[in-house]
């Protein structure tokens, strides 16, 4: 149950911006202080500090899950590259995830895929946000 | 005539001549490694001497701590516009050449 809530919570996390949602602030603060796997209370509800990718990586470590997660991460990377907002480390993470998968290290592979997917998702968030907010940085 | 590796700016001023010389050279120290981890062999200019009218006015010995495209500047007494400077460089590999420049 906790996991589901945190998934929703994390998806809501379109962070930063002018009018930052207080939940995002709370989430970011808790995440920054305690890392993943920590639970916190916000508005009377309990949430986890996990990113959705980390939740996915917590699934059973096997070939099927690792393969699916890697495919999802690659797909997300393609999406972020399509809008020209990729991050530099992602490619290496995907490569390592592929190698780990081949070597049968499913948990390692899933963790790496999750990290890669997180990068790409944040790149997309960055892209979305930039469309609206870049103008704020122009000196008047 | 093809230009050598040295470029010089020599200016006579107030009885002195200010000489600035730069060489086009990578000054490979022998300490660097290439991508495959092999050491790149040392290849650098060891000495550079400057002669004005048969008289040595500067001789410089260089080590691995001299920058790429080595540069030096110095001043000697005498020298007039139009005089020629003979500059001789020698690499650690044994290659050597003499190039000339005119004082302006």
């Amino acid at each position, binding site marked *: 149950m906790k996991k589901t809530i945190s998934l929703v919570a994390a998806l809501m996390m379109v962070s930063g911006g002018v009018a930052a949602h207080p939940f995002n602030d709370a989430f970011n603060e808790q995440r920054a202080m305690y890392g993943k796997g920590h639970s916190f209370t916000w508005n009377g509800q309990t949430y986890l500090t996990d990113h959705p990718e980390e939740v996915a990586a917590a699934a059973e470590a096997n070939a099927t899950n690792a393969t699916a997660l890697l495919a999802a991460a690659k797909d997300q990377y393609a999406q972020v590259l399509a809008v020209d907002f990729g991050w530099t480390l992602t490619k290496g993470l995907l490569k390592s995830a592929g190698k780990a998968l081949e070597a049968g290290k499913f948990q390692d592979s899933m963790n790496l895929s999750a990290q890669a997917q997180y990068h790409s998702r944040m790149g997309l968030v960055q892209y979305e946000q930039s469309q609206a907010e870049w103008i704020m940085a122009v000196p008047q | 005539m093809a230009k050598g590796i040295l470029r010089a700016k020599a200016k006579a001023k107030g009885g002195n001549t200010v000489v600035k010389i730069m060489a086009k050279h990578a000054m490979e120290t022998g300490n660097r490694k290439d991508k495959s981890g092999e050491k790149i062999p040392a290849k650098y200019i060891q000495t550079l001497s400057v002669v004005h009218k048969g008289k040595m006015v500067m001789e410089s010995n260089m080590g691995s701590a001299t920058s790429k495209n080595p540069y030096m500047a110095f*001043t000697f007494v005498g020298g007039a516009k139009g005089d020629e400077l003979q500059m001789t460089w020698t690499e650690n590999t044994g290659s050597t050449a003499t190039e000339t420049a005119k004082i302006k």
Partner: protein
Amino acid sequence: MMNRRSVLKAVFTGGLVTGMGVLMPRIAMAAWSKAAFGAESQEIAMGALYEANPQASADVTLKAPDIAENGAVVPISVKSSLSGVTSIAIFVANNPQPLASQFTIPEGTLANVSCRIRMGKTSDVTAVVTTASGSFSASKEVKVTIGGCGG
């Protein structure tokens, strides 16, 4: 008379100095010295070139930046108000081979040279000026930083 130490040094420098007066600065010979340029410590490099450790002197002026913009190209100038300067040498203590450059100054050339050196990391840079009465030095620490803007 040569003492044991300078005899050793004479052997070390390839026997080039044998037969020369001890007070005669060896650097005046101007041959590229493998013992000095190949030395991996400043002490050994200086030992190969000078009779005695150079003395710090206010008559030697070393111009070098406090913080090098880029360690690969550090502009250095040395000048001296001493008379009868025969050579100027520049050492970078923390480089793999500390001796960077050695200039022979014939009569008629001013004791004022500039060059560009390479520095692997933050280090003292020392300029040594040789005259008939000995060797004199000036030192300065030059900081080498690793920048954030590699691209």
